[in-house]
């Protein structure tokens, strides 16, 4: 135990990230179940308004800050040195500081539940002035801010580490245009983090000053400006969406190429598309603020539409990679295909709400809840499972059960869609988000009932994953170095890889070193 927590080996740090994110995912999943239990029937009093606010705040916070974004970072921690042929990350101690700041930050946020006044209850956006009411929100809101400040510093430190490692520590012959797409996507993600996360750290520090030191940054009666909070928050918040999706684009690319038995189609196009998405995502923050009337809607609408172009390029590349390939529908590939189908729905509904007239109608309704769950749940979460199934043998040295894996996919795919399709219709019928109950009007009772039933199916799928891990751990079928026939360098190393990764320094001559070997 002591050896593990003091380790600076990137593989142990990456594994710690992954295990911690899976733990936070369980907590976020339980909170999601509680939310759906509360909303299963109209005028329900199961949770009550204040507890409901805490639960949905914790759910959103955990999924965004402690599950989806850091899972990509954790996987990158494990994979990047292996994929570029480096013995470790450039700054191993900094890497270890990052993971422990992240873990302690997450625990601090959840520990707020035990504080007086309960956990934070102002939503994952913590909009001022709601989040500034110190007495109403209690210590939980402060613990939330402390936890997220720690997590944001952790993310910035890790992004610096990724950039230095990729640019300076590649193996002989591993030129930039030979590194795997996942590493490229993490490079784009790292640049995005360095540009966006300081804004988050700044706005949360300002909020703490307002709450504890008598500041009035966002306090309109004293000359402050609550819209400034939204600007600073969303300058981080929208790039954060891409911090939560770019790594998963990389994961899907690796998996699609491996299980199509073909090289990646349009490698350079995928790299350019990743950086185009990253760049454009820094200029769209105020499409979350269309309805404030305080931003330039035409500007933000136009740039938001533009992002669909490089995203579409990625779909073309994935389809091109699969085209005439020898496709094997193993569990990781099924999840990757599930990602594509779900993310497409999320993307198209995103294009819809990039139009201000439509957004005025859909804003703060369940249509938006459906939209972002299709991008981050149906998209990123499916790719997260794809990654877990794909790299589990490499990380832990044992194979997962394929039959249970396919059942896991079936339940999660059906459960996810049964849960979130009705939410689009709830939104169109005018159901507002962030409300703890609703009247029995229109079809809201039926639609909410279906959504809550879907959550149960989805939960069974997630439980099947854990059953699979336990069963596989009991069987302990040892994983070979390259169980899937992958092409990138990590598949040359043993499963799990040894300390410092390779017996000798690898020498690279193509984009597919494992197929060259």
């Amino acid at each position, binding site marked *: 135990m002591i050896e593990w927590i003091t380790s600076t080996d990137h593989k142990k740090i990456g594994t710690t990230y992954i295990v911690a994110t899976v733990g936070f995912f369980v907590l976020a999943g339980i909170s999601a179940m509680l939310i759906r239990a509360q909303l299963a029937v109209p005028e329900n009093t199961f949770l009550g308004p204040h507890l409901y606010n805490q639960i949905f705040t914790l759910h959103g916070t955990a999924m965004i800050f402690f599950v989806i974004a850091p899972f990509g970072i954790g996987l990158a921690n494990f994979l990047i040195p292996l994929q570029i042929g480096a013995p470790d990350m450039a700054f191993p101690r900094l890497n270890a500081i990052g993971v422990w700041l992240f873990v302690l930050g997450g625990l601090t946020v959840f520990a707020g539940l035990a504080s007086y006044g309960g956990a934070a209850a102002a939503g994952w956006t913590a909009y001022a002035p709601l989040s500034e009411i110190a007495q109403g929100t209690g210590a939980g809101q402060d613990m939330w801010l402390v936890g997220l400040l720690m997590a944001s510093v952790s993310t910035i430190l890790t992004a610096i580490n990724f950039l230095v490692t990729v640019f300076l520590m*590649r193996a002989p012959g591993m030129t930039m245009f030979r590194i795997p797409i996942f590493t490229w996507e993490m490079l784009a993600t790292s640049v995005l983090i360095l540009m966006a996360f300081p804004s988050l750290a700044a706005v949360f520090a300002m909020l703490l000053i307002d709450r504890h030191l008598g500041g009035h940054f966002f306090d309109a009666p004293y000359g402050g400006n609550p819209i400034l909070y939204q600007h600073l928050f969303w300058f981080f918040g929208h790039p954060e969406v891409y911090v939560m999706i770019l790594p998963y684009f990389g994961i899907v690319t690796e998996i699609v190429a491996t299980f199509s038995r073909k090289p990646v189609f349009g490698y350079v196009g995928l790299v350019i598309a990743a950086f185009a998405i990253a760049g454009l995502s820094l200029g769209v923050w105020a499409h979350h603020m269309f309805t404030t009337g305080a931003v330039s809607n035409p500007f933000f609408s136009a740039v938001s539409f533009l992002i669909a172009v490089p995203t579409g390029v990625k779909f073309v590349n994935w389809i091109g990679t699969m085209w005439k390939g020898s496709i094997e529908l193993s569990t990781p590939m099924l999840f990757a295909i599930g990602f594509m189908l779900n993310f497409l729905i999320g993307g198209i509904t995103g294009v819809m709400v990039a139009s201000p007239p439509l957004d005025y109608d859909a804003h703060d309704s369940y249509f938006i809840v459906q939209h972002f769950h299709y991008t981050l749940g149906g998209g990123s979460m499916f790719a997260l499972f794809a990654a877990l199934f794909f790299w589990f043998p490499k990380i832990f040295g044992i194979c997962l059960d394929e039959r249970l894996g396919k059942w896991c996919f079936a339940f999660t795919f059906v459960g996810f869609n049964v849960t979130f399709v009705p939410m689009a219709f709830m939104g169109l019928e005018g159901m507002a988000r962030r409300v703890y109950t609703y009247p029995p009007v229109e079809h809201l009772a039926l639609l909410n009932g279906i959504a809550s039933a879907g959550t149960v199916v989805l939960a069974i799928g997630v439980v099947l994953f854990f059953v699979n891990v336990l069963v596989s751990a009991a069987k302990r079928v040892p994983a070979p170095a390259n169980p899937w026939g992958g092409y990138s360098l990590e598949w040359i190393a043993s499963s799990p890889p040894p300390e410092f990764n390779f017996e000798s320094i690898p020498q690279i001559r193509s984009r597919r070193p494992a197929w060259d070997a």
Partner: protein
Amino acid sequence: MKTFVVLFGSSAAFGAAIAVTYFFVAHQEAAGTALLGIMTAALAFTAGYAVVAERDADLEGDDPNARRDEASGEIVGVFTTSSAYPIVIALIALCTLLGLLFVPLLGGVSLLALVYVLWRMGAESART
């Protein structure tokens, strides 16, 4: 390093274009213009720093035909396998932040401890 400079340089140029466009289209809105301006300056500084500091960098990873023996021995560097400082630093950082909010004395003491432990880790890093 050429790719690094191209990447950050082109990102800075893109940031500048977006900032100028935003300034005029959004009727001189201050918050967004400042954010985009700072972002562009940070990207340009990073590209400029790479040009100055790493202009003589000769990396085996940039040579498509580099041989294994060109990157052996001391070139690879020395990597520590363990250190107790990272988790201690994270714990003290947590105590500092919570202390400053709820128990200022604890926050102050933790802040001093944080500076000391960071200094000790720097010394350890210089040794290994």
